[in-house]
């Protein structure tokens, strides 16, 4: 196992050129915690506001827009001017609000609902902490932490920038899948420990679902591994750079239709992994009240919410890393590389942030559009649709690579660099035919057959949907 450069830097800084194990440990934790605390944690918190705002927009509402930052401002003023009487403090607060720009900013925060975030958090801290009688106390208490650990641990191996990665594990892709498995243990413990039958059902559903959907996730990642020839996430990212200004064309998702399909499959399986509608079996609100977290209140419940949003971010980050060029910009890298190191790190992390935030928004969009599957349908979808499609894609990918090799230099992806004798890039007609036209045409035929087999829509439904 290797550690990221930043880890070594910190370790060296602490205990000299030959760092001791504990210094390395501190560096590791620091480098892991920095992106988690600075990027994932805030975004996971803001994710709930994103969710509410996107849902409101879809439902022609406003969403949270009346809670300003006045409470926080008042807190600051009260603490800073504690020696003044209340009335004077209030006047100072009013003055500050009236300052040019401040009121505007506060208003923006208010309309954006970010104040809501603070209010929710403050309220949760103030809530009574209940461990109901009849629960399995230790299990009940530990479950939220495990869920949170499962949600945050995988970020150690996600490269946020060239030097902002805690663990450069050679099997990074595998590590992410393994570490995120903690979450399901948390959910199961929550379901079991609550001593509530609805929770139990929710926990059981969560286990069945998450364990099943790890297969398509694993297979989708295997496709990337096959294509790039490495399991190191850092190298997978580096692999997707084609050296041009249009570097987005080098992203894995544009390399082959099979990879594009795998990206979609990974996204949907990831959606199921983090229990989001249409896969929110574990928390099916109308069936299981609130599923595994029915008995949780206050901060413990907040931890589950946090874990859920962190997992969404994880899925977004994983899809970005594996298929969308990771932290790389879509318009080439030289302009970033020319910047100072710290700025480069920030920009890279920011690019990844934008990518996974888009993924999160997409998930929210899906959630507020679709109804929920039934538990058997979720399983059927996994085992009878996603897994075969993943296998098919893997097969197609392997076939593409093989054909590319046989055709002698006809290839589009950088992977061919790894096949002996195929070191140069040549985007010619035959290459496009092999990698894109044939698979897409085949898929179109398959879809047409499936549609016909699925049957026509009833005429009454056609009438209801406007004769379309």
């Amino acid at each position, binding site marked *: 196992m290797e550690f990221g450069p930043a880890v070594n830097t910190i370790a060296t800084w602490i205990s000299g050129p030959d760092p001791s194990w504990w210094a390395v440990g501190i560096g590791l934790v620091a480098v892991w915690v920095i992106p988690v605390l600075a990027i994932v944690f805030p975004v996971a918190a803001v994710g709930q506001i994103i969710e509410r705002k996107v849902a409101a927009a879809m439902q022609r509402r406003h969403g949270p827009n*009346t809670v300003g930052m006045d409470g*926080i401002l008042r807190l600051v003023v*009260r603490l800073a001017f504690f020696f003044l009487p209340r009335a004077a403090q209030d006047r100072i607060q009013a003055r500050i609000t009236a300052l040019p720009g401040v009121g505007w900013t506060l208003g923006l925060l208010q309309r954006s609902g970010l104040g809501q975030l603070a*209010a929710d958090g403050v*309220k949760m801290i103030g809530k009574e902490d209940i461990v109901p009688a*009849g629960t399995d106390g230790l299990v009940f208490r530990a479950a939220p932490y495990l869920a949170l650990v499962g949600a945050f641990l995988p970020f150690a191996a996600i490269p946020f920038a060239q030097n902002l990665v805690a663990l450069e594990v050679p099997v990074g892709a595998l590590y992410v899948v393994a570490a995120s498995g903690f979450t399901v243990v948390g959910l199961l413990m929550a379901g079991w420990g609550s001593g509530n039958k609805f929770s139990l059902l929710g926990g059981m559903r969560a286990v069945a679902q998450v364990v099943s959907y790890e297969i398509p996730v694993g297979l989708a990642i295997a496709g990337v591994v096959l294509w790039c020839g490495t399991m190191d996430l850092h190298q997978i990212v580096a692999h997707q750079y084609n050296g041009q200004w249009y570097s987005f064309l080098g992203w894995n998702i544009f390399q082959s239709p099979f990879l594009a399909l795998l990206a979609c499959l990974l996204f949907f399986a990831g959606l199921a992994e983090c229990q989001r509608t249409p896969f929110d079996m574990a928390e099916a609100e109308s069936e299981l009240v609130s599923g595994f977290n*029915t008995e949780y209140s206050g901060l413990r419940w907040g931890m589950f919410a946090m874990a859920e949003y962190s997992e969404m971010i994880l899925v977004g980050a994983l899809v970005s890393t594996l298929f969308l060029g990771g932290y790389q910009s879509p318009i080439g890298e030289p302009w970033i590389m020319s910047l100072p190191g710290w700025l480069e790190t920030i920009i890279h992390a920011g690019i990844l942030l934008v990518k996974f935030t888009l993924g999160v928004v997409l998930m929210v969009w899906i959630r507020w559009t679709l109804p929920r599957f039934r538990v058997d349908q979720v399983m059927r979808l996994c085992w009878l649709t996603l897994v075969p499609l993943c296998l098919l894609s893997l097969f197609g990918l392997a076939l593409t690579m093989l054909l590319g090799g046989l055709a002698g230099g006809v290839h589009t992806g950088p992977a061919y660099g790894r096949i002996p004798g195929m070191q140069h890039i040549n985007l010619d007609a035959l290459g496009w035919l092999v990698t894109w036209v044939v698979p897409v045409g085949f898929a179109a035929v398959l879809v047409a057959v499936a549609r016909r087999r699925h049957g026509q829509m009833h005429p009454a439904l056609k009438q209801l949907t406007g004769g379309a």
Partner: protein
Amino acid sequence: MVDPGIARPGNDPDEQVLVTTVDEFLAWGKENSLFYLLFATACCGIELMQTGGPRYDVDRLGMIPRATPRQADLMIVAGTITHKMASRVRTLWEQMTEPRWVVSMGSCANSGGPFSKWSYSVLNGVDKYIPVDVYIPGCPPRPEALIDGVMALRERVRKYRTLGMRDRDPHVVQGGDCAFGSHPGRDGACGPSSAAPGALAMSRGDESPRTPQSGKPAQVNGGPA
């Protein structure tokens, strides 16, 4: 008029800067994040639903519905409570976590409403079973009235003190502190105080163990499992 909730300058030991400031901050959070329990029995439930709908949208105020009482701060008793249902309402209320608030929405929950006179099975007001903070008159109240009632409740929440609370009753509400002014009397009244002694003790969160019922698992939905 003495305001029981807001600390006044003076020699009050609660008048510590930090305590009151943090209290104020906590109250600000509670006030702005009232998650309400999805609890509707009758007609008022439809208006409650409409209030959550696009036109009135209580999500603006930070109110979102929660299905489980554990995660709810506010119970809007929307609709008639019958004798058969009453003990379940109590159970639900007990399952909510402190600080918790109850809004009695509509005449039925206030007093039995149109059923108070001739009915044999309707409870004459939900405040017989649980303490109510705000009463909203109407049959059913309009969504505006509900929002107004929530605003009145927020006034109360603002006065709620988590840390600095001494002998104050958190469930004391000022006269005329409710929607549509004051309607003393049996229908849609703004009662002075309806706090259960137990509720007060529980809300302090110090000496009192929760009532035995409150810890029951697997009974989120009322009734015996």
